[in-house]
């Protein structure tokens, strides 16, 4: 019985492993803020090229970077900032040059109805509010702190979330009164959080680079996926989700 279970599991694992390496799978490691848009791009790409199966590995850009640097098998890396891509490129893990495919801005997100009566960045210093930011080491946390610094606000932070979606979830649930996320994140919730614009003077732009990885188990399919993201069809999907185009 136990032997049977173990044998079965090993067979399944072997099949899975074989599918990853010899089949036409593309493993795309993409930043959390790309969750919805890359899911839609995946569907469009797969219906255009049915022989290639895209598998998305979504996470904070810095975590994905660490996975790649530690040798995790990925074909494509799409980061929410340039510095994480640079670190991967510096390690010699990037094939060719990364391309900037999208641009994002930051926005204040508050729960629907704005229970904390937040009007702008200045409210982030109010001690009685529950304020969340992304952790300093993920792009949204880095950008968020830049924005606050430009606005000369010292925030009274209650939590530093490991990625932008974790932060958004807690704002959506009404557990936090405000946080700084990407404009596209507010779009992605479809009205479950309210967005408050940050002025151009304080705002920063986030550039999203994409690249095929040197050790990509499936380099050709990876290049095809990257080309699709940069194509007119890819760009129009990105624009639908609120991304700026380079």
């Amino acid at each position, binding site marked *: 019985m136990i032997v049977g279970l173990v044998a079965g599991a090993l067979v399944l694992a072997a099949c899975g492993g074989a599918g990853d390496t010899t089949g036409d799978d593309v493993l795309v490691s993409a930043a959390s803020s790309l969750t919805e848009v890359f899911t839609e791009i995946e569907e469009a790409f797969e219906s255009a090229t049915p022989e290639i199966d895209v598998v998305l590995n979504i996470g904070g850009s810095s975590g994905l970077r660490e996975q790649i640097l530690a040798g995790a098998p990925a074909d494509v890396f799409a980061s929410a900032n340039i510095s994480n891509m640079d670190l991967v490129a510096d390690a010699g893990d990037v094939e060719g040059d990364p391309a900037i495919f999208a641009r994002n801005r930051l926005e204040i997100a508050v729960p629907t109805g704005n229970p904390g009566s937040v009007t702008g960045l200045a409210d982030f210093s109010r001690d009685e509010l529950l304020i969340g930011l992304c952790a300093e080491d993920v792009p949204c946390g880095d950008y968020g702190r830049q924005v606050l610094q430009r606005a000369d606000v010292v925030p009274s932070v209650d939590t530093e979330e*490991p990625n932008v979606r974790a932060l958004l979830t807690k704002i959506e649930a009404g557990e936090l009164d405000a946080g700084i996320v990407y404009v596209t994140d507010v779009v992605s919730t479809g009205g479950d959080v309210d967005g408050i614009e940050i002025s151009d003077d304080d705002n920063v732009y986030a550039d999203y680079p994409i690249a095929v990885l040197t050790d990509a188990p499936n380099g050709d399919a990876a290049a095809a996926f990257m080309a699709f993201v940069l194509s007119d069809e890819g760009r129009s999907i990105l624009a639908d989700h609120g991304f700026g185009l380079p």
Partner: protein
Amino acid sequence: MTKRATSWDRRKRRPPVVLVILAVLGLSVFVIPLLGLLARTPWSDLPTLLTSDVVLDALRVSVVASLGATAISAILGIPLAWVLARVEFPGRAIVRGLVVLPLVLPPVVGGAALLFALGRRGLIGEPLNEMTGLVLPFSMWGVIIAATFVAMPFLVITVEGGLRNLDPRYEGAAATLGAGRWTVLWRVTLPMIGSSLAAGLALTWARALGEFGATITFAGNLQGRTQSLPLAVYVAMESDRGAAVALSLIMVVISLTVLIVLRHRWWGAL
């Protein structure tokens, strides 16, 4: 006759080769990751890393939260174990299932459930907040509750097991000799299940110390307030791997020390 006895003895002394190989492979599942950790440890930077603010803050949060969770588990879990072991009531199997659920549930799911129940907008959290102004997420209480949720089952099942194995005649004898129910509980029952209790407390504490998923989901992550050792490891993994390894090493040393020191207590009870 004697010859046969000796060969049987020898066979008993020398375990089957296949079993030994599998056992060594089994052990390697635990040992190899530890070796990986040791190989990556920046030994020369270790003193600086171990005394950094991030590490000391995380250590303090972890110690307070894990001991708090163990204390709450003892106060609530021992009575729960006693009821499960001694009281016949309809639906007891279901109750036991509910108690064991956090053992198999992904902790992130537990954290989300806690947020929906005890968060500021939660089922119980909202009236609680309106009445007392208390907000559990993003506070030390949140960390303790998350750890209690995932760790208390260890105490309940171990103590319940101890109570079931206890011969009820001892308690009966004490009662016959005039001891009240509380006296029986304090002076006979609890001392007699001492080893189960110690094992349960040790496992509960160890699980609480290692708690990650429910904590980050329910209590958030802020250095000095809710960032426990596992959370600090997770955050440091993405920025400062040396610090992450140093933090991991602390956790391994603390946990191993406690489990080895208490080994006689819980070995027999499990």
